[in-house]
């Protein structure tokens, strides 16, 4: 099946990007994704089942992720769960989004809106990054 064109430059929604980040590590089912997103964002990004599965539906249509046929051992699995994995197009889209965000961070840093993780001075009054 050919993958629908996503367009590498098209920005992803925050939910999509977080899901791709979670799946870049390994295949996951829905609740596992929510936990991974919670951990990766330090609890700063919460996603509910509705938003999660709407995003999954869109990402399946865009060919960014696919349902995985591989499952854990039966004694460790609930057969009603669905596992998803990232596709090559998904990796490209996530990389493009990460690069876009990195450029924004660089621009913010250049305008002294963000502390320099390399030891620079934080913007006055903002406290800077920890």
């Amino acid at each position, binding site marked *: 099946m050919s993958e629908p064109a996503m367009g590498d430059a098209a920005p992803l929604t925050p939910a999509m990007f977080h899901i791709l980040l979670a799946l870049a590590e390994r295949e996951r089912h*829905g609740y596992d994704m929510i936990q991974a997103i919670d951990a990766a964002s330090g609890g700063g990004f919460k996603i509910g*089942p509705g938003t999660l599965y709407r995003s999954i539906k869109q990402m399946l249509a865009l060919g960014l992720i696919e349902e995985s046929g591989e499952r854990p051992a039966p004694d460790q699995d609930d057969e009603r769960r669905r596992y998803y994995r990232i596709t090559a197009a998904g990796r490209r889209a996530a990389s493009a989004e990460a690069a876009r965000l990195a450029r924004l961070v660089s621009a913010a840093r250049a305008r002294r809106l963000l502390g320099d993780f390399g030891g620079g001075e934080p913007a006055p009054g903002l406290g800077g990054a920890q």
Partner: protein
Amino acid sequence: MSATPARASRLVAASVAVYQTLLLLYPRRFHAQFAEPMALVFGDACRAAAREGRSPALARLWLATLADLLVSALAEHAEHLKEVPMTEQRSLSRAAGLAGLIGGALLLFYGAIGLLTLINMVTPEQAFYHTVLYDTRSALFLPVSWAPTLVAPLAWVCALVLIWGLTAWLALRGGWGAWLAGGVALLGALMGFLGSLSLVIGSWNSWYYWHASATAFESLIMGDPLPYLAALDIFGRMVVGVGLLGLALTSWRTGQAKVSLIVVAFLGALALIPYLYLYLAGPAIILRALPTGTQYGGMLPWTPFSLPFPAAWPLNVALWSVDTAFALVWGLGLLALGRRFLGGAVARAVRQAPALA
């Protein structure tokens, strides 16, 4: 306070059962594809919250999940609307537009009758059009108490239910809005029936409505369906009230025609307010509606209070004023909405709406 394991387990099971029911708010296709894994995810989250051992954790989870459900279900329905074939959208849009125009015209007529009634009420002498006015109202707008025949009120109520119900249904086209409208409309129908009954019983001893109650009470004994028809009237109003609000909500994020959508939302709320009052008053009227022996009590229908006539009169004027204003504003709104539907503007706005995140 930490819950016992058994209690926590029951709470989780009940929460999942309620959430599974709420998942019906999503479009059918989405529900068929994702409802099961979504319920699994919610169950896992509930068990994690229960393990925290504090009641607020589950309450917080519910609040967040409800907000997530509302936003994502709305967004999914907006997506679903865009997938309706263009030809079907056009014909639905035209039908809804026509219904809106007819409904709007009827409401404006009703508002005009209300205005004439108000003038007649507040002037010391009966207006010259008094007889014509009451004959018209008898034929069209007061089926419970005044109708000399079944034909005119039946036609009126059927028109109301068909036009307003159709408009709302077309606006929402199934899904969560239809569930919500159906639920509230059922409540509306029940309370409308109670209200109609209370009008019949409550006005039995009323001097103000004595001639009306004589007819209505006889109707009730004879098994006349008119009170039920009045309940259907309320049913129709409730459906369109909720429908208009639903339309406003589902279309809010389109970024187009926001002003008219604000008007639609306002009209929807306005449609509901008088009937919320009615719902609150209905059971109270039933409770206190047994004949009081006050021959000239001047009880008003739809009010939970039995007032002497001088105090009841301004209230009656106020009620007529609210209903008349409601009819006029809503009639204008329906006309405007009908025009937009006829022009296909609503369908276009939904089709061109950006996807919700």
